[in-house]
């Protein structure tokens, strides 16, 4: 079966982001960008399905600026077969991305779409669920285990109270949680090979999707900082502070 994986280019998780002085957003110029960590897990999961003989082809898709090609090349270096960039310089919000992915899914007819559960930039946690809704497909979010069983998938999900297992009919959308797998490192030979793989570029207009944003950002500010407290000498002093100063115990 064909598996489609959606990936997003985000500020690297190790970067300490800075709010722009004019309050319009977060500084992204000259900042290291990487594949969203949850999406890396999604690509890895697709690879494992392929290595197990379950998946026949892996198509990676990204929506965004031209620079997303880099992110797609990384996914190709992990082992995806080909890539599609839906190129747009505009701000793409989750609903717009879900609509673009729906159009790509209708072109490609995969049996499974895997996405990260959330992107670590806007922390929205929406795109997978929205894509499933627009396609009328079932969804299994926050997956920590995925088993394909003929025309169904059995997915264990990380939920508030522990773990929950659902069975979903294919085609379906799955979003990844942290413990689904540990992504492999890309090797130099695979980076070289990735350069030769196909990367197709599409435009939102060609897919007939209106991507105009529904939310406008009025301002972005830094949250009020917590004042660093004091280091106390020993446990006795700590308990004294907690009892008499903070009065929390």
């Amino acid at each position, binding site marked *: 079966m064909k598996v489609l994986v959606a990936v997003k280019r985000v500020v690297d998780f190790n970067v300490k982001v800075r709010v722009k002085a004019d309050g319009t957003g977060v500084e992204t110029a000259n900042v290291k960008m990487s594949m969203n960590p949850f999406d890396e897990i999604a690509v890895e999961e697709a690879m494992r399905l392929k290595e197990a003989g379950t998946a026949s082809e892996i198509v990676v898709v990204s929506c965004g600026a031209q620079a997303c090609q880099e992110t797609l090349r990384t996914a190709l270096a992990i082992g995806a077969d080909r890539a599609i960039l839906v190129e747009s310089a505009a701000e793409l919000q989750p609903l717009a991305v879900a609509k673009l992915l729906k159009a790509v899914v209708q072109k490609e007819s995969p049996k499974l779409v895997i996405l990260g559960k959330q992107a670590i930039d806007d922390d929205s946690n929406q795109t997978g669920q929205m894509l499933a809704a627009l396609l009328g497909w079932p969804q299994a979010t926050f997956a920590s285990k995925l088993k394909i069983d003929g025309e169904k998938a059995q997915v264990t999900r990380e939920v508030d109270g522990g773990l929950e297992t*659902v069975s979903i009919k294919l085609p379906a959308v799955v979003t990844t949680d942290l413990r689904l797998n540990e992504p492999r490192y890309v090797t130099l030979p695979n980076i070289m090979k990735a350069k030769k793989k196909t990367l197709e570029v599409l435009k939102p207009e060609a897919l007939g999707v209106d991507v105009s944003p529904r939310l406008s950002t009025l301002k972005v500010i830094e949250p009020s900082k917590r004042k660093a407290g004091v280091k106390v000498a020993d*446990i006795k002093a700590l308990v004294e502070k907690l009892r008499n100063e903070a009065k929390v115990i």
Partner: protein
Amino acid sequence: MAVLVLAEHDNKTVKKATLNTVAAAQKLGSEIHVLIAGHQAGEAAKAAAQIAGVKKVLQADAPHLGEFLAENMAALVVSLAKTYSHVLAPATSNGKNVMPRVAALLDVQQVSDISGIESADTFVRPIYAGNALATVKSKDPIKVITVRTTAFDAVPASGGSATIENVAAPADSGLSAFVSREVSKSERPELTAAKIIVSGGRGMGSGENFTKVLEPLADRLGAAMGASRAAVDAGFVPNDWQVGQTGKIVAPDLYVAVGISGAIQHLAGMKDSRVIVAINKDEEAPIFQVADFGVVGDLFQLVPSLVEELKK
């Protein structure tokens, strides 16, 4: 127009997250209706009718709603949403699972995890693991919202006298089925509702040490137990203990971080706690930058002596 709140419940009782969400709904200044979608959830509906400030409880009861599957839940919410100005749910794993599906079916851009309400169409939400706060304005006719529960003080669970109205549930989608659930059983308070949390990190070294060293402290304080991602990834404790950007967001009165270095994604989940205590052997650990009280030293000596000191 009224505001609809999708309740978090277990068919018997209403979870505290619902009370925080009703508190957020109150800031919108309209009549509040609460939806109890479940199976044999009469008790939960009665409890919801007691919540202060709630005017009406809608109860949808069907076997295929009993496990809160996103496909069936979203179809139900969409069937009701058109007469509301706002649909709110807590940003719990259920809320996060169901609401984007609702939003997409209504052709609405959801506003996730709001921590503030400026007006009926303008909301504040954390981005980049809480390292920035964005104020966003929605143009959509219906606002679909998930609420960061720690940002809104719960309304009282009693004092209200809402009417309960039955609503019909759309048929089972048949797309998904519930198989099983592994619930972590614990006598302790729920992590997101606890007043005190004792949390352990990689420095704990093993799951056994959580039991031997940290549990006595949690017992002493009547605290819930949490963990950093590193401790969960290492397999020391189950996934639902994880506090952080992608785990649970907590804001107890007292948060005791033991052997936790304080990675950005962990701080994102607990920095709104009222008082933070850090115990760590590395005095340079970033956790000390947010801690009100820090003790530098070996946790395997400090934690047992803390338990002893608390007995005095």
